[in-house]
């Protein structure tokens, strides 16, 4: 169990146990991840099976409000779907889209950034000007644009089933320049270290040098950026879904839930939109707190 001792003994673990905020954020994040991964098993209702829905239960308020029922702790929406269950399923979509799109952005960004920083020259200029140009446009607009183009080029019957992947694609495309920039600056530092020169001398192929030596050494800052990137991606996803161009209402994400609930906000059924919105805030806040903490822990200057 040597590695376990090393983990417990590590500076990062120490800094982790020193801050109750971080421990709480980590606990909440873990809780959300577990409940969303196991959503089909932990929810009492299946909100997406029309046969199990009872329209008589529509607009049930939360339990602490008069008329609330124990079977629907956070109330129901206009179709009698349990809000708590839809939130868990919604978290699932939000987290999935968040993680996958960050992965995609990292894949594109780290590849281009490493090539850019290591090889340099006109290729570097080309990639970085491309990144600069994209950074002048807000990511949400890029995502909207890519999303629209991707949907338009897809067949009608595929649109529904591929909606999530189209979202992942568009958010990933929108976020890559940041990863490319961070990776590039790291690669430019590593490139001039002598172990790279040593690898060149013994004849290691440039591609292999990038994969084996440069990338692992620049992943630290990129990983921190990624942890901060996940909540950003979740917010973009929620925004797109709120605007109605994200995931379809049949498999709603948090954004879709908020949009649906928004229609009833002024007719008094506030819980339909408030609870998904709160869930979004809690999710984004906890992941963000972890990201900030990681950034501070990995940056010796801030310790």
């Amino acid at each position, binding site marked *: 169990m040597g590695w376990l001792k090393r983990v417990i003994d590590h500076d990062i673990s120490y800094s982790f146990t020193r801050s109750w905020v971080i421990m709480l954020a980590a606990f909440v994040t873990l809780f959300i991840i577990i409940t969303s991964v196991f959503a089909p098993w932990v929810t009492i209702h299946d909100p997406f099976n029309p046969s199990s829905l009872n329209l008589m239960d529509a607009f049930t308020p939360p339990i602490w409000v008069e008329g609330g029922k124990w079977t629907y702790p956070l109330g129901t929406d206009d179709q009698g779907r349990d809000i708590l269950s839809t939130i868990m399923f919604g978290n699932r979509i939000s987290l999935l889209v968040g993680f996958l799109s960050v992965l995609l952005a990292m894949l594109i960004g780290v590849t281009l950034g490493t090539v850019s920083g290591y090889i340099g020259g006109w290729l570097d200029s080309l990639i970085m000007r491309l990144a600069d140009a994209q950074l002048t446009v807000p990511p949400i607009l890029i995502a909207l644009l890519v999303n629209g183009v991707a949907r338009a080029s897809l067949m009608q019957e595929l649109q529904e089933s591929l909606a999530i992947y189209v979202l992942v694609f568009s958010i990933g495309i929108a976020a890559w320049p940041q990863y490319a920039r961070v990776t590039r600056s790291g690669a430019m530092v590593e490139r001039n*270290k*002598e172990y790279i020169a*040593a690898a060149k001398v*013994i004849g290691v192929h440039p591609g292999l040098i990038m994969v084996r030596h440069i990338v692992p*050494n620049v992943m630290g800052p990129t990983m921190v950026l990624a942890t901060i990137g996940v909540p950003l991606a979740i917010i973009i996803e929620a925004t797109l879904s709120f605007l109605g161009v994200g995931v379809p209402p049949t498999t709603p994400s948090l954004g879709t839930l908020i949009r649906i609930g928004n229609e009833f906000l002024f007719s008094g059924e506030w819980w339909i939109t408030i609870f998904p919105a709160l869930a979004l805030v809690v999710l984004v806040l906890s992941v963000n707190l972890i990201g900030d903490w990681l950034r501070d822990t990995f940056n010796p200057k801030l310790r």
Partner: protein
Amino acid sequence: MTALLEVDRLRIEFPTRRGILVAVDDVSFSIEEGEVLGVVGESGAGKSVTGAAVIGLLEPPGRIGRGDIRFEGRQLNGLPQEAMRRIRGAKIGAIFQDPLTSLNPIYSIGRQLTETLTTHTDLSSSQARSRAIDLLNEVGIPAAERRVDSYPHEFSGGMRQRVVIALAICVNPRLIIADEPTTALDVSIQAQIIGLLKNLCHEHRTAIMLITHDMGVIAEMSDRVAVMYAGRIAEIGPLREVVKSPKHPYTVGLMDSIPKVGQEKDQLSHIRGAMPRLQEIPPGCPFHPRCPEAFDRCQVERPDMMDTGHPRQAASCWKYARTASHG
């Protein structure tokens, strides 16, 4: 017998906005098998660039303008990258100045050694591992069996430089380019590292091109010395002769400026002025503005390497022009 490494009239240029900078010009030398050639000179004299050209690490925009680099009789410059990599491959090793950055921080030293070994030899990974432990023992890492799985940051500077040496010699190269191998180390560690390099190369008959500005290191290790000034070789010859009876006025000044124990002096002697910047290398002999012995010819004509009267010792100074022409 042909020399292991022959550098012939090498010229290295850096094209810039304001014209071409010539960092190294007309440099010729050779290294025999198992020989240690020390290359000394001030910062910017072109030592490191010459070394970089030999191992193919000349970074663009730097380029070889003229001249040849031959290794084991085969020309290295002008070859396509891939072919050059294959020739150089395992036969030329390198040791750099800073042991802190010479090792990849995220792999254990054992892994770095075994990977180098399995890439360049037929050893299986378990054989490579035991060879790695042998190598670490050989370079004087205590408890090598345990330390083989340690990471670079768990070693001190001197120990790391030992690991770097182990990496450089692991595939039995014929030539090692050591660029300031001891500059970043404590004086006491320097001596150990020099001794280690010397022994290892003696055993494996590896030739070394030792680049440094430290005459002490040169005196300790090398068989022959090349003194570089402003991108040219000022003097080249056997260690004893160059140190005891330097021929080029620059070498004379250099030797005088080294403080000696037991010698009482109010002020250390030095060479007047400073080495010219690359854009402003004067015509004629580049050293003439600082040379106490300069005469008219030095200001207009560039001296070639001249016979100094001693076999194998040559200097680029017009002082010896007569001796040369009279045979």
